[in-house]
């Protein structure tokens, strides 16, 4: 059965490694923080200027001066720090953040990503996404395999204006875990009960399928 958003987040959380600093985008990526594996310590960075984000505050304890890049009220953990946005992107551009998780509208087989603009629609801006994708050594995209019209978002070439080129290494969708390597998607895992055929049929980009494709363990 295809995963729900929490399932995608849970699967991505398995990629976390002890001691990593992690930047989570808005949407599904935010949910990753709920599924940190036991025994692992990671610290969350938000690009407006905080390291060491904690959970959302209890009702009545919100501080308008303390928000994340999604403008949500948050709290801090012990060991947190605040800094200006230039320093924040120094961390990102300087590759001090070990993992970036973000959503996408389209991903192509050479790792291009489009997630900020749809021609003809109101453009809200790229925010920090272009900085993040251009710099992160390790990017995981959390997204749905197809759009609402049923068209694949896992493509040979992106059709939408790009956010970054050749930067995505891994994609986790409701159906599969894909790795991008040498200009092709590689099917690493399938969601529990999802067939390889379904994944192939919903993937427009070139997909390498090994003989055995394990089910995700989540």
């Amino acid at each position: 059965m295809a995963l729900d958003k929490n399932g995608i987040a849970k699967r991505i959380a398995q990629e976390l490694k002890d001691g990593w600093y992690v930047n989570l985008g808005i949407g599904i990526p935010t949910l990753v923080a709920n599924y940190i594996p036991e025994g692992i310590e990671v610290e969350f960075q938000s690009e407006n200027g905080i390291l060491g984000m904690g959970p959302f505050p209890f009702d009545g304890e919100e501080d308008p001066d303390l928000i994340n890049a999604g403008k949500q009220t948050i709290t801090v953990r012990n060991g947190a720090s605040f800094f200006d946005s230039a320093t924040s992107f120094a961390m990102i551009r300087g590759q001090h953040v070990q993992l970036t998780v973000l959503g996408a509208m389209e991903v192509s087989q050479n790792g291009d990503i489009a997630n900020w603009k749809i021609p003809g629609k109101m453009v809200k801006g790229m925010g920090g996404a272009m900085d993040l994708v251009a710099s992160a050594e390790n990017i995981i995209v959390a997204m749905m395999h197809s759009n609402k019209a049923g068209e694949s978002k896992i493509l040979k070439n992106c059709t939408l204006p790009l956010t970054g080129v050749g930067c995505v290494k891994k994609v986790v969708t409701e159906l599969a875990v894909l790795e991008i390597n040498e200009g092709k998607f590689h099917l690493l895992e399938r969601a529990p009960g999802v067939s390889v055929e379904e994944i192939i049929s919903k993937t427009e980009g070139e997909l390498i399928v090994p003989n055995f494709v394990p089910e995700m363990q989540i």
Partner: protein
Amino acid sequence: MNKVVNNPKTALEGIQDGMTLMVGGFGLCGIPENSIAQLVKMGVKNLTCISNNAGVDDFGLGLLLQGKQVRKMISSYVGENDEFERQMLSGELEVDLIPQGSLAERCRAGGAGIPAFFTPAGYGTEVAQGKEVRIFNGKPHILESALTADFAIVKAWKGDTEGNLIYKATARNFNPMMAMAGKITIAEVEELVPAGTLDPNQIHTPGIFVQRIFQGEKFEKRIEQRTVRSK
């Protein structure tokens, strides 16, 4: 070196139609509320505003948009604002979208006398159009230029009479770099204290970057995305 002015009116003297303003804040967090209210009162028009966001319809820079005071916005993200959308689609409002990290660094560069620098952000996208591309360490980068402004308007938590500023939590955001990049920088603070009160070790923005400072009368501090968990 006393930089205290008594009120927003005196603080914003000299801001004129057609000028470029930097306005601190991220979303509605850490924005100079009292100065924005004064800009509305003054009715200056044709402004170019450099600010990471454009406020919401009825707060923050959205108030200037309502009054059609802004000709051009230079921002990284401008969602959550219907009037903005209307003016942009109708062509009344020019919008220059810049990656957030490049925006922050371009402001810092403007304040630091660095006219241009290379960054990987935006390479291969429409942001790179017309910009020089150069490979460093096997990776393509684009050349981005410094941003400065006629006036920078920032908001801090505490400030002293010599213009030294301390921000609170994530209300720091773009304020320090914009304070550096304004030809004239105006700071509004929640609490104004005598010089010597703040620990010199804990100043976020040294007074050299601030020309005028005042204590804001009232701060609404509206929350854009109130998010809580249950106890």
